[in-house]
């Protein structure tokens, strides 16, 4: 059987099973290029990921990253890249939180590799992962005053005065 048929079947299977778990209104999904992306409310994110890992064989957390969409009601987002190595199947699961309630449950209990990924997401986007064993900054210095990957943080050091803003933009 060609690989893409298996993939289409798997996509359908995952969609069906998540509909069973969360209800048809409990999540949204869209196909972006070759990958199916699910958006799950943050209250359900941990149970959904645990279900995907245990029941649907997504044994590998490829990556986890934060996102910031200023202007949306729920500005911050986290994207979980899941991979089922046995089936050669990848999906992405997204969840969004508001700036005021930027908290998500940790998934370090499901995949130990999430430890540093969550620390990175906290460091750059300020999303707190509750239950994380060691949630502190990882690439920036300990007392860094901002979350630099948020869109409102300027690319250049805002304290510099020797550069003109007119052409370069801050």
């Amino acid at each position, binding site marked *: 059987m060609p690989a893409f048929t298996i993939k289409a079947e798997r996509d359908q299977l995952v969609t069906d099973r998540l509909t069973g778990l969360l209800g048809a209104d409990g999540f949204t999904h869209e196909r*972006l*290029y*070759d*990958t199916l*992306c699910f958006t799950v409310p943050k209250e359900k994110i941990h149970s959904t990921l645990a279900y995907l890992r245990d029941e649907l064989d997504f*044994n*590998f*957390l*490829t*990556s986890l*990253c934060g*996102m*910031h969409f200023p202007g949306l009601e729920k500005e911050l987002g986290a*994207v979980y*890249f899941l991979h089922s*190595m046995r089936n*050669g199947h*990848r999906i*992405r699961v997204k969840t969004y939180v508001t700036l005021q309630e930027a908290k998500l449950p940790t998934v370090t209990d499901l*995949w*130990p*590799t999430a*430890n*540093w*990924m969550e620390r*990175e997401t906290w460091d*750059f986007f300020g999303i707190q992962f509750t239950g994380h064993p060691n949630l502190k900054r*990882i*690439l*920036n*210095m300990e007392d860094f005053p901002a979350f*630099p*990957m948020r869109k409102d*943080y300027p*690319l250049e050091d805002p304290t510099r005065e020797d550069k003109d803003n007119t052409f370069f933009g801050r």
Partner: protein
Amino acid sequence: MSDTTTRPDLWKEDLVAGEGLKELTTLNLGPTHPATHGIFQNVLTMDGEIILETEQTIGYIHRAFEKICERRPFYQITTLTDRMNYCSAPINNMGWHMAVEKLLGIDLPKRVEYMRVIIMELSRITDHIICNTIISQDAGATTPFLYVYQWREKIYEIYEEICGARLTTNMGRIGGFERNFSELAWQRIRGIVKDLPAVLDEFDALLVRNRIFMDRTINCGPIAGERALQYGFTGPNLRAAGVDYDVRVADPYSSYQDFDFAIPVGKSGDVYDRFTVRQEEMRQSLSIIRQALEKLDKISDKTTFRADVPDWVLPPKEEVYNDMEALIYHFKVVMGEVEVPVGEIYHCVEGGNGELGFYIVSDGGRNPFRVHLRRPCFIYYQAYPEIIKGGMLSDAILTMSSMNVIAGELDA
């Protein structure tokens, strides 16, 4: 003289009785120490020679690539990617190009894809040469580091002939290469394919069945396959632990499905297995290059070196000065004013250390809205404290060099 100093049979009991005197040592391994081959700090808590706890600090050369990517046109980001894993920069460059091509929906001619395969496999060889010779160096064998390393130099001469740079290559463009390979470049590639196997055999003969090397590396820094998967290992480190996952086979890109090659796997995931897996991968890479050269010989077209994407490749200078159309394209490329679809993609390639992924969110503007770089080093380096726990300090050094942690990729 007391009994305890003169009677050896009492010594052991004396040590146990002196438990209160046992002191734990705190040792700063790094950040800048020649044995760490990069800027990594590990604060070790040690009982004598035995490592009990490790506290890692990273981020010393963090350069905010993901943030810079949000302010650069797509083609300018290539130069950032080759500063990640600088031991195999062309793989990063081409991984990024392929990610953008996937976003744009560009299909490449077979010839270009095979040329890319050749370059990517050459850079895999350089990456593995660096890692394996450093393993031998840290295990006390200096010869490979001085002798085999010169073959990395010869491969850098190929890069130089193709793109003009050696370490941070910025090789290729979105849609292919900036120019065709010269005759000298082909000669040098054929020369490497011809000469390197004998050197690898010599390298093997020096170390693989060497009693001292085996005693030093077998069972040093092992990790089980299941645990490695939980920790997000990919690449040679995962394969040394016995899991045959390779992006080139699992999600073939750039026509890797046309090639016939084996994925070497180890068993116990220790330093010895990582070393031998990399040795075998170099041979497989040479075999892939050989096949690619054969396939290229069969293609009658010898001039195509990129897809037909004038929006993304600078036209030749003579045309820019003399042709209106070319001047417009030149401007469009330099200013980054080209059509990019809205969407998001994840594309991964098999880098020197494992699955190197590029996640691009595009809002249709001249810069990507968000770029996330999945850097294999960053993800597997967190397993280091667990691997070295209970081992000796010298094993910790060897384990780190065998994991091939590259500071540039770790910190991005």
